[in-house]
């Protein structure tokens, strides 16, 4: 049982990574991207292409896929999402919903509906014994990478010139421009960062599970639950939210194996009822 819960927490670190890119969009840029899950799957397919064409390990594909997704995110913000800003909440929702449908169908055309995974080789089966509990090396690596990425993101957005510019822009774009901040460029870079992080999540997801062009929305759901549980605008809260979700799902499978996701959703709803602002709400919307 302990093993199941620990594994749940480790899967939760992956959910946290799904959520981090969304947390940047939703919490820091205050801009919804409903296609977030589909971009995760898209990144996984790019990694798969690199693996099949060049025979490289998924972890080696990572430093190639992440920059590609940064560029995709930059272009997406600059040429699509930017046009929806300042017109209320509805246009970004509709545009990114449309984007989600388009992306799923493009992936279906390009990569077929077959279920795929990213073969991690020996890494997939390696395990370490901690007392009576055997823990996989890949889940441990996922947790370590997740903590590292969260720390880096928190540092960049919390205390650098770029991070301040992003927060100032989402507070008040017009006044941010008066400070000399090139707000459009700053948001494009932030979106690029969000999708580069999604690429990292995608590769760790692809190494432990299977994906096909239609699995994006479920990633989006887990990402969303992690972000809201942790609290909008709190970066570390998203990791905590992801881990709570992972443990809840693992606890569900202990009761009935197919019950995992449902228990996760129930914990999310209870969390939303008891703490509508999330666990670590740092700021209230002005």
């Amino acid at each position: 049982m302990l093993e199941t819960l620990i594994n749940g927490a480790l899967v939760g670190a992956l959910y946290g990574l799904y959520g981090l890119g969304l947390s940047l969009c939703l919490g820091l840029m205050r801009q919804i991207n409903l296609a977030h899950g589909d971009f995760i799957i898209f990144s996984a397919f790019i990694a798969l292409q690199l693996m099949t064409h060049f025979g490289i390990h998924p972890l080696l594909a990572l430093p190639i896929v992440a920059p590609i997704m940064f560029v995709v995110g930059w272009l997406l913000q600059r040429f699509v999402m930017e046009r929806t800003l300042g017109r209320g909440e509805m246009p970004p929702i509709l545009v990114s919903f449309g984007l989600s449908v388009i992306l799923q169908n493009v992936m279906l055309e390009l990569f077929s509906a077959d279920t795929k995974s990213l073969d991690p080789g020996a890494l997939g089966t390696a395990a370490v014994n901690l007392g009576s509990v055997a823990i996989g090396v890949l889940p441990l690596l996922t947790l370590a990478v997740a903590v590292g990425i969260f720390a880096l993101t928190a540092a960049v957005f919390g205390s650098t010139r770029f991070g301040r510019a992003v927060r100032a822009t989402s507070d008040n774009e017009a006044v941010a421009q008066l400070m000399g901040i090139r707000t459009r460029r700053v948001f494009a870079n932030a979106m690029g960062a969000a999708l580069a992080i999604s690429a990292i999540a995608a590769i760790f997801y692809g190494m432990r599970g299977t994906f096909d062009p239609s699995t994006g929305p479920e990633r989006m759901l887990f990402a969303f639950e992690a972000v809201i549980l942790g609290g909008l605008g709190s970066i570390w809260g998203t990791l905590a939210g992801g881990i709570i979700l992972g443990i809840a799902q693992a606890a569900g499978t202990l009761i009935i194996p197919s019950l995992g996701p449902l228990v996760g959703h129930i914990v999310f709803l209870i969390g939303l009822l008891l703490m509508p602002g999330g666990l670590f709400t740092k700021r209230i919307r002005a």
Partner: protein
Amino acid sequence: MISITDLRAAYGPLPVLFGLDLNVARGETLALIGANGAGKTTTFAVMTGRLKPQAGSVSVAGRDIAGLTPMDIVSHGLALVPEGRQLFPSLTVEENLVVGAHSRRAGAWHLERVYEIFPTVAEFRKRPSTALSGGQQQLVAIGRALMSNPEVLLCDELSLGLSPAAVDVVYSALQKLRGAGLTTVIVEQDIARALAFSDRFACMRHGRIVLSGSSTAADRTEISNAYFGMR
């Protein structure tokens, strides 16, 4: 320092400025007064690049800045303290000040110097900007503008929404800046205060300057006539 010639601007089909001419000398403090809708805030919007003029020129220190973006104008040495303060709520007081220096314009202003002239701001440096009173926020907003090392400081309605006591604090803080070589333009509803604080005044009506002169020698009756359009 500031030279505005025949400036015309409109919000969509609605013309607001009809050939505005205004000159402000280096180091001078000018009070821009006028009734609501006279075009004071619009003049600031054009000067800061928020609104593109239809015609005319705006030059600061000999460089024409009309039609440039706000981002370029701040690096040419013009900073605005916006109406209603408009601090960034998700940033701390200190981060608000640091963001003011985003344009990286060289000059004598830095964090410690702002704290020196506004000691109350220094006390709250690590606090969220929303935790401050209106008067304290106004000091942060002025400090944030100074951080861009401006040659020209525009202050829009500094006293808006503040208690009279807080307004006194803000203006006495601003008084410390006189003699620092800044060219300052203030827009202020309280005419007595505007005249007391400035070297010169310019009264706007219907998008142009209808009366201007020395603030100390200002004739109150003449000003109210210009203000309300009476002869």
